[in-house]
């Protein structure tokens, strides 16, 4: 997959789509709602390190940039099944969007609008989201333990 850049266990994907004229305000509102409250459905996927949407070019285009673990196919499909309304709420405001309920078409749409990553660096390429969350949890517990005995 040419548009996917991989470093260790982390993959980068960047896609640019055209916003339907006049839809940018609603899209902006939806993106803010979706990413508030610790990411909601995005967090529940458990494999996305960082995802960023940027409305640019005078409200005409949408940049989607994400860093995630695992196979793009495996997880995009699960996500499309579990939260199709969330995907619709974003790319439903973009041109040519086929809807989230037909997975092969959705995949072709997202990967078809993806662009090549030119430079890519990650400080922890072998750590997954689950590894990091677990390590932070252990540190928190260990600190609590030290606080009690100290």
């Amino acid at each position, binding site marked *: 997959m040419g548009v996917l850049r991989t470093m260790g*266990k982390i993959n980068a994907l960047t896609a640019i789509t055209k916003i339907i004229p006049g839809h940018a305000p609603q899209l902006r509102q939806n993106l803010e709602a979706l990413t508030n409250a610790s990411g909601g459905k995005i967090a*529940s*996927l*458990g*494999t996305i390190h960082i995802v960023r949407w940027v409305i640019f070019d005078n409200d005409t285009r949408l940049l989607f940039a994400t860093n995630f*673990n*695992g*196979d793009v*196919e*495996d997880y995009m*499909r*699960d996500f499309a*099944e*579990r939260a199709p309304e969330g995907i619709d709420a974003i790319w439903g405001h973009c041109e040519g969007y086929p809807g989230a*309920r*037909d997975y*092969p078409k959705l995949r072709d749409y997202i990967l078809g609008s993806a662009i090549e990553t030119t430079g890519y660096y990650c400080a922890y390429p072998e750590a*997954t989201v*689950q*590894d990091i969350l*677990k390590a932070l949890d252990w540190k928190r517990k260990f600190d609590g333990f030290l606080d009690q005995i100290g």
Partner: protein
Amino acid sequence: MALRAYRFPFGRHHLFRLAEAGAARAWLGRIAGQVATVAAVDREPDHTLNLALSWQGLMALGLPEQSLQSFPEAFRQGMAARAARLGDTGGNAPEHWDAPFGSGDAHLLATISAATAEARSGAAEALLASLPPAGLDLIDSLDVALLPGPDGRPVPVEHFGYRDGIGQPSIEGSGIDAIRGQGTAGAGGAWRPLKPGEFVLGQPDETGEIAAGPQPEALGRNGTYLVLRKLHQHVARFRAFLRTSAADAAEEELLAARLMGRWRSGTPLAVSPGGDDPAAAADAARNNDFSYAEDLKGVACPLGAHIRRMNPRAGLSGPAGASVNRHRVLRQGLPYGTALPAGAIADDGAGRGAVIILINADIARQFEFVQKVWTNDGDFAGLGGEKDPIIGANDGTGSFTIPRSGQPRRRIPSLPAFVSTRGGEYFFLPGIRALHHLASAGPPMPHPTPEAPP
């Protein structure tokens, strides 16, 4: 085969290359009436015949391009081309597979399943006698059979010594009574059968939708995909590993149970973690009645145990738990090769293992996901990069984590591979009507059919 996990003790897999479309189609038309249906299987015949085609096979039959392209990408590419996804790299890579797997020549799979070795021979002879003089080249035939037990009678025990063939998805409308633990785990310990569309094309699946299938519709109707894997088992290595990793025979059995998730009798660790309980193994109402919901940390059954990976049930606390029902496969398979004598821990160099037949409606979403995410990764269960201890593509560097209650987890290091991939193919298993469609599809037959030789 699609809605019933076969329990026949003997089988023979024939692989054919289709050299001449007209002759092959005429033969398919003649033999289609002998292919097993669910109704026929339920009459408990002494043998059955099943036919399945690879994508190259469909092409060799002369299926129109538009129809060929309507099949999903994974199937069109075939198992060998998907090797990197499947962990079939290094010594497991397609260039090391037994011929003819991965060559693209295994166009047609004709599997005979039989109640006795004699019934198998008879059915195989009849199959070969039905072939036209030219047009279908037999390029491999592979015998599989249950291994003999202590008294010489076949027993459902695979080469590593575990009782096999216990857990199967129960499927809505299959006509088989659902057994607790075999469908999908719902809230509050309830179970319901899986939707048929997970295993048969043209039926509603777990999303409630009917997924798009191959075209024309008559071709996909009641069809499904059959994944064949020929897996060599390193039995001596497995026994030696248990011996060196455990202090005594009892500890060996406990480790063996933890790697599998079942005691060798078949008793699930989730049901009887403290010791084997053969009565539970023999009881169909108990040997699958568990969900791991009360064992999210894996103290009773390790999170990485083979059967827990193959079907995590309600035992995933993380986000991956929400879609377990979308990654199930119907498994059936039989051993090949002779058993390594009891107690031997030196390799005798013989080929032995299992030919596994997996049925699913979507190869990428079901078999490949299970292979990639549940077998050859551990992140979905919080196990980092650990792989399945029994069938994972281990290389001596991996580990197996055993969570324990009230004391630190134990980690078994340096896991070698106990299984090597020796071959495999993706096949389309057509329904009976689709077989007739295939027999009549494609361009008009250019030559007289074999019934009327020139």
